[in-house]
């Protein structure tokens, strides 16, 4: 599907209206995290998530995650109707444990990455990405 700019603006505007609903704990997100971690404690060291603060285009937001020593990284768009984005698995011969992709964000939300380390521990990083109407550029 190819979206025209007009479509994307309308989407962004709709998204913005939706964004006014305060963040609520998303049960689907918690379930996904629990399924990935088996309920283990999740730390915050050893993982770096890079995402724009404000999306230039909510339909294609570049994100990058890096977790040296990870065997798997799960990426979630916590505010999307379907939060699951991808799980990257790294074999023993992987040169680096990093991945980058582009994701579609329906509204302003947190993007979350959770890495499973070789020793079975978990680390999480989150970044808020704002989806805005734009305009009025100083």
């Amino acid at each position, binding site marked *: 599907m190819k979206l025209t700019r007009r479509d994307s603006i309308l989407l962004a505007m709709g998204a913005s209206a939706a964004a006014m609903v305060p963040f609520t704990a998303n049960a689907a997100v918690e379930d996904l995290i629990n399924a990935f971690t088996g309920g283990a404690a999740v730390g915050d060291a050893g993982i770096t998530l890079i995402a724009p603060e404000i999306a230039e285009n909510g339909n294609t937001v570049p994100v990058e995650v890096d977790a040296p020593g990870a065997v798997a990284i799960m990426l979630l768009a916590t505010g999307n109707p379907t939060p699951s984005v991808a799980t990257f698995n790294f074999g023993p011969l992987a040169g680096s444990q990093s991945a980058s992709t582009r994701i579609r964000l329906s509204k302003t939300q947190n993007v979350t990455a959770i890495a499973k380390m070789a020793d079975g521990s978990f680390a999480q990083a989150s970044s808020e990405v704002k989806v805005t109407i*734009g305009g009025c550029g100083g």
Partner: protein
Amino acid sequence: MISRRDFLQASMAASAIWGASGFGNWGRLAAQQVLTQDDLLSFETFGNVSLIHITDIHAQLKPIYFREPEINLGVGESRGAVPHVTGADFRRLYGIDDGSSSHYALTYNDFAALGKTYGKMGGLDRIATVVKSIRADRPDAILLDGGDTWHGSYTCYHTQGQDMVNTMNLLKPDAMTFHWEFTLGSDRVRELIADLPYASLGQNIFDSEWDEPAEDFAPYKFFERGGVKIAVIGQAFPYMPIANPGWMFPEYSFGIRDERMQEMVDEVRGMGAECVVVLSHNGFDVDKKMASRVQGIDVILSGHTHDALPEPALVGETIIVASGSNGKFVSRVDLDIRDGRMMGFRHKLIPIFSDVIEADAEMTAAIDAERAPYEADLNEVVGTVADDTTLFRRGNFNGSWDDLICDALLSERDAEIAMSPGVRWGPSMMPGQQITREDIWNVTSMTYPNAYRTEMTGEFIHTIMEDVADNIFNPDPYYQQGGDMVRMGGLGYRIDINKPIGERISDITLLKTGETLDPSKSYVVAGWASVNEGTEGPEIWDVVESHIRKLGTVSVAPNTSVQVVGA
């Protein structure tokens, strides 16, 4: 032994004392009518490197009036911190005497009255004199242009920025970064930078398709001055495709990208840089946050938010210099770089009083040549400012220029509600001044000027207002994407700046009837500067000109329709 941090703070204090005495002195001198060019330019050369910073000229080649903001609110950690200090508080903070030239140059109060004494400011020919004077002191001073240079006037629009490129070239800058330049369209930008005899920098300008650094812009440039290696890293406006029409430069992506900024700082340090300067169009609060997150920057030359500060701000070991807008100020920063580090600095924000600083003849001739083909159009008188009115824009909420533009939209486009963008550019006009076509273009000129007329529901209007409010009052500066609050015509509202998005705006009222805005009803809305491709309607300058012609003399009552809470 004195640590570097102590030294910087001591140096800062010294700078403050020195700055304060300088300011007080100007006030007294001015009162005696002996404000001189020598006073304005006096500077005891310091250290071994000089930087000259100018930014956000917005194509103002000639001297202008520019009223600084009355309302410039900070939220979160920026609450009450510079540059969110205005008026008398600003003067007390910096030890500026009431009625002094610095009062006039840096604060809004008594603007029209003081303007009669101190006159217009800026003018690229005066700036040329200042730059030449600094270079007479320090021939290898590095001149850095923070961007928003190729935008904002009649001649700049009609020459697609060529007038600014031609005149700026005479100043011989060493590097530049960008914002509104991209609204010339990416083809034109590439055409202009291909011929620039200086560096076009932006570590955060990326190729949007591959999300890799764009080949057309270098991240940094090295300079060797006084035996010192200096790296200047460029930082373009981070929110280009959000705040301005992305369809005009679809090949490029921006963003703050402070991870890459750290990589670039580490890279240039690894290559032997003894001093790292960031030429930034982030805006002041974003620069403050970036300085706290990226280690190893000595100096940030800050642009975009048009703040003029008599002293640098200090974040960690980074100094942040804000040099105003519209050609009103030039900053000189002398640095003492020894043993691979910045040991101290001396700074001066030089106000360009156009009646005091002599025009550089070569630059005057160049400016005249650029304007000559357009003189008749530029100088055509359209109306007059009433004696009770000063026209200005700068500030978080509606300025009188904005109210006039909104009135023009309501009346010329037969609309119930008008929207005008909260941009920070646009010179002011004094009571009794004749309004020429050039004056109207100075506050409207842009490459997406179409004044649309459309229907919007009350709910959607509220959504837009909330969205824009969050783009200025989000407590995290990295989530503030651009200008001041959208100016509403025909509507009054209440805003609580400390609330989250969706809860800031309330009591939206149609001023004409006193009715509350109905979320489900459709209203006819006229506005301009839409970032949407294919926006239709007359050009905004024609709408405003037609309105002013009908009025003849323009009187704008003070705006009382925006009630601000939580300031």
